[in-house]
Every structure is written in structure tokens, then in C-alpha cells.
């Protein structure tokens, strides 16, 4: 069992246990026997045709799981959704990554996949939104755009025939991320949704939930209008790395960033799925109980968040009925 690596007092332990039991009782009704481990036989109806999907294999005519996870059935397809695993990219996913290498016409990004992802220079647009022309000078200035260890946000473009992964960053919302924190959580905690970019206005913060489990919490930057095509001086501008005003980040902003990051850390330590609403609720909880930012990672706050989540889910369940 995955335990919290925190010192808990006797009462805290009991409270946490009670909250987790409540969570268990809430979810148990839906699918109690859908969980499988490695080499478990998945019950299927052999009369009907079925397709075996990811995480399954055929053994003497039986369908057998190859990973630990939850069995999902969609029409004829039977597959096992692995829980803790590295990221499996899908085309169109928004990911956050870290540049590990700058090479010929491309950057290599670590995105928690089994291979490094490739971001081609040609799949980046100019700062003002026009297509890049392939010039030698452009290639020489690549380090002006992203360097090693920069944090970059991009979109999954496609898989090459050899299995490697290509990214693209064609719009203004993608690109280098600065003035913030990168948090790494398990990818199964981040669900696919319509919106992965969140602007938390009350804090003035941008929150990017990368599908690969890399979460960016940083100061809000005003997205420049991508549709403005300024033909006149684009050629010179594109060569020069953008002049970011290197003003210093105010203390309040840094505190907000830390508070939100700590909320994400607590949620991921407890293994709750992470979305912007839940993060905001956790942040609110932390300010209503007037807990210091550094105390958010202590045991008391973990227990509080667990209790709050149990309450929230039970309310949600009632509303549905």
C-alpha cells in the first residue's frame, strides 16, 4: 500500500483513515471488480468478438492483463488502463517539457515518455505568428529561442514511423515558460479536458496542466495577439530573442505561486486527480484555515484536504442522484 511519508499523530491517522474509507465507499459501488493486476485473467464473453487493446495479451485463448490497472470496455475493445505509468502521448495533447538537448534544427524535450520528444525548428512559428523560412541563420540562433533546461509548453503533433514523437508550438500560447515553478505529478492524475491553460485571475497566475503530468505554475503573461501579421520588420525581429523585461517578481506573486504549487503537491501526494477547480478549492481551504505556505506540506493540511475531498465527493454523488 502506498502510504504518506509523513509523521502523523494518533488522531490525524484516524481522521485520514476515516476520510480514505469514505472515499473508498463512494467509489466502490461503480466498479469494484474492474481492477486487475499483472497476469490476471480478464473475464470476456467469448461468444462475442472482442478486440484486445493496450495492457492485454493472449494466453492459451484467455485474455490476460500485462499491467496493473482498471479494465475498460468500449464496444468490442477491451483494454487495461494503467494507473502509475509513464506518459503515453496522444496526438493533440498539451504537454510541458524540459529541453535536454539542442541539435541540428531540433530540440529534444524530456516529457516523461519512454523516448525524448522532438520539437523541430520548422514546427515553431515566428514570434508574430508567421511560418518560419528555413535559413541557416535561423538555425544558428536556435539557442536564442530555447536553451538547455528551459521549460517549454507544446502540443503533440504526430508519431514518426519509427516511433519517435514530434511536437509543435505553432501558436502564441505555446513556447518558453518563465517565472514560475514546474511540478511533476503522475500523469494519470491529469485528465484530458477542453482547457489545459488556466488563468487564475484572482492571483494573476497561469496554470498549465500538461497531460504528461508536468504542471506549470507561473506568473501570468499577456498572450500577444497571434493573428497580427506585421510584415514590415518581422524578419529582423525574429532573429533577435525577444527582449523580456527582466523586472523582478513581486513578493506577493511569488507567495501565490508557492501556495498554488503546494496545493498541487498535497493533491498529488494524496493521489487525488488534479484539475483547476480542485486546486483552487485547496488554495482557498489553505487561506481560510490561515495556514502558512510552508506548513501546507505538513501532515495536518494533508488530513484536512483528504477530509474536504471526501465531503466534496459525497456531495457530488448526492447531487447526481
Amino acid at each position: 500500500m502506498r502510504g504518506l511519508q509523513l509523521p502523523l499523530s494518533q488522531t490525524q491517522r484516524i481522521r485520514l483513515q476515516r476520510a480514505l474509507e469514505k472515499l473508498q465507499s463512494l467509489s466502490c459501488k461503480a466498479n469494484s471488480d474492474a481492477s486487475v493486476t499483472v497476469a490476471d485473467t480478464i473475464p470476456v464473453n467469448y461468444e462475442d468478438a472482442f478486440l484486445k487493446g493496450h495492457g492485454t495479451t493472449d494466453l492459451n485463448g484467455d485474455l490476460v492483463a500485462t499491467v496493473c490497472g482498471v479494465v475498460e470496455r468500449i464496444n468490442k475493445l477491451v483494454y487495461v488502463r494503467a494507473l502509475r505509468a509513464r506518459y503515453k502521448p496522444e496526438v493533440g495533447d498539451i504537454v510541458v517539457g524540459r529541453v535536454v538537448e539542442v541539435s541540428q534544427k531540433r530540440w529534444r524535450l524530456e516529457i516523461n515518455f519512454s523516448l525524448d520528444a522532438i520539437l523541430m525548428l520548422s514546427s515553431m512559428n515566428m514570434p508574430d505568428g508567421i511560418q518560419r523560412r528555413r535559413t541557416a541563420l535561423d538555425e544558428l540562433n536556435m539557442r536564442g529561442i530555447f536553451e538547455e533546461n528551459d521549460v517549454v509548453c507544446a502540443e503533440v503533433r504526430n508519431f514518426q514511423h519509427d516511433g519517435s514523437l514530434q511536437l509543435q508550438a505553432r501558436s502564441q500560447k505555446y513556447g518558453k515558460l518563465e517565472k514560475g515553478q514546474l511540478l511533476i505529478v503522475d500523469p494519470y492524475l491529469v485528465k484530458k479536458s477542453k482547457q489545459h491553460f488556466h488563468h487564475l485571475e484572482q492571483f494573476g497566475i497561469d496554470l498549465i496542466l500538461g497531460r504528461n503530468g508536468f504542471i506549470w505554475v507561473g506568473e501570468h503573461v499577456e498572450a500577444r495577439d497571434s493573428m497580427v501579421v506585421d510584415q514590415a520588420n518581422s524578419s529582423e525581429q525574429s532573429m533577435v530573442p525577444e527582449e523580456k523585461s527582466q523586472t523582478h517578481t513581486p513578493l506577493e506573486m511569488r507567495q501565490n505561486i508557492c501556495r498554488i504549487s503546494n496545493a498541487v503537491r498535497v493533491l498529488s501526494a494524496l493521489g487525488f486527480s488534479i484539475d483547476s477547480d480542485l486546486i483552487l478549492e485547496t488554495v482557498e481551504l489553505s487561506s481560510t484555515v490561515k495556514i502558512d505556505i510552508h506548513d501546507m506540506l505538513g501532515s495536518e493540511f494533508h488530513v484536512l484536504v483528504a477530509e474536504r475531498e471526501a465531503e466534496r465527493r459525497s456531495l457530488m454523488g448526492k447531487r447526481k442522484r
Partner: protein
Amino acid sequence: MEYVSPEGLRLDGRRPMEMRQLRAEIGTVAKANGSAVFEMGNTKVIAAVYGPREVQNRSQQINDQALVRCEYSMANFSTGDRMRKPKGDRRSTEISLVIRQTMEACILTHLMPRSQIDIFVQVLQADGGTRSACINAATLALADAGIPMRDIVTSCSAGYLNSTPLLDLNYIEDSAGGPDVTVGILPKLDKVTLLQMDAKLPVDIFENVMGLAIEGCKAIANYIREVLLENTKQLEYRRGL
């Protein structure tokens, strides 16, 4: 020396066919992709799995399957006398190789081409049967890392002392110099992936001893599956809808 008393009890009070107490914990190394601690009595082993990730040394990259690497080490404080062991001595290289080969046999490496999987196992307390404990811990860690496997591998040792087959030898029995059979099996496929013995045994007795070790492996497999299922369920209900 007498290893089995006339009443049929061993030095640590077990029956000849009795295993030591098992304990397993998943998710003990926060930064690893998968990790586990496995205990068999006083033997305690920690395993961490990283990957599948980009191959560090390009020349080792394999184009149609994953590269599996394994490193076995023993903590200085793991044995009775605190010894500073050089890293990469013959014994640990041999065990690393054994664990690597055993795990490679069960991982579906062809699903993760051109990547690398690192398994690190370290013995925290040594009391005999570290090889088996390492394999069991590595299986748990691999399953935790969500790496597709044909089946779980479990391993257990058995020996033959005072003309009695003994299951799961501890350090004193292990160092008695009698035959020591370490078996690793794939319980679902019913296949043997590891078989080591460093002494001679007549064939009929060997069969008995090996049968005993296989029984032990199956008992461990049941326990490991229970732990894994419990862990999976917990992850799922915590995540919520």
C-alpha cells in the same frame, strides 16, 4: 551441527516447510517511476525502477526492444559485521546479471523499443535469500512502474540439511554449506526462469527440494498479487471520477 531438532523445529523455530513472514510495501521511493520494499523475515530489500526512458548511452540502444539494466548492491550496514565492500565485486556483478536476466524474461521489451529500463536493488538487511528477495522486490517495483509484463516473477530458495528439505533458508542455514537451490518461476505460465544450485544433490532429492521451492514461489506470488491488487484499488478510488 543440528539444524533440525528431533521435534522437527529449525533454529529459528520454524517447521521445515514453513516460510518466513512476508511484508511488502509499494511506492517507497518518491522520485522513482516504481519502487517497493520487500521483506522475508529479517531479509529486507528495496528496489527502484526508472524508465522506460531515453537510452543514456546511444551505442547500447536496441532498435526493436528495450534495454534492461540492473544494479544490485548491499548496504554496508546490512550484514552483522560492518564491511566496506568495493562496488562491483564479483558477487554483486553476478547477482545483478541473474536479476537482469530473470526480469528481462518477463518484461514485454518489444513494446518499448529504443528505450531503457533501470532496476536498482539494494539489500538493507541480509539474512539469507537476498537473491530471491531482490527478485520479488524488483517484480513489485516493475508492476508499480506500469511496465507491461508477461507474468510476475517470484523467487524462493530451498535447501537440504540433516536429510530434511528446508524452505526459505536463513543466514545460518545458508552458511551451513549444504545445497541451496534458488528457483524463480512465472506462476501463471508455470515456467521456470531461474534455477541455481551451488552443490551436488541426488536427482530424487533434488526434485523434492525444487518442488518445495516452487511451492514457496507460489505462496509468494499469491501474496504479491494481493498487495498489487490492494495498491491498484487504492490508487483508483483515491483518484476519484
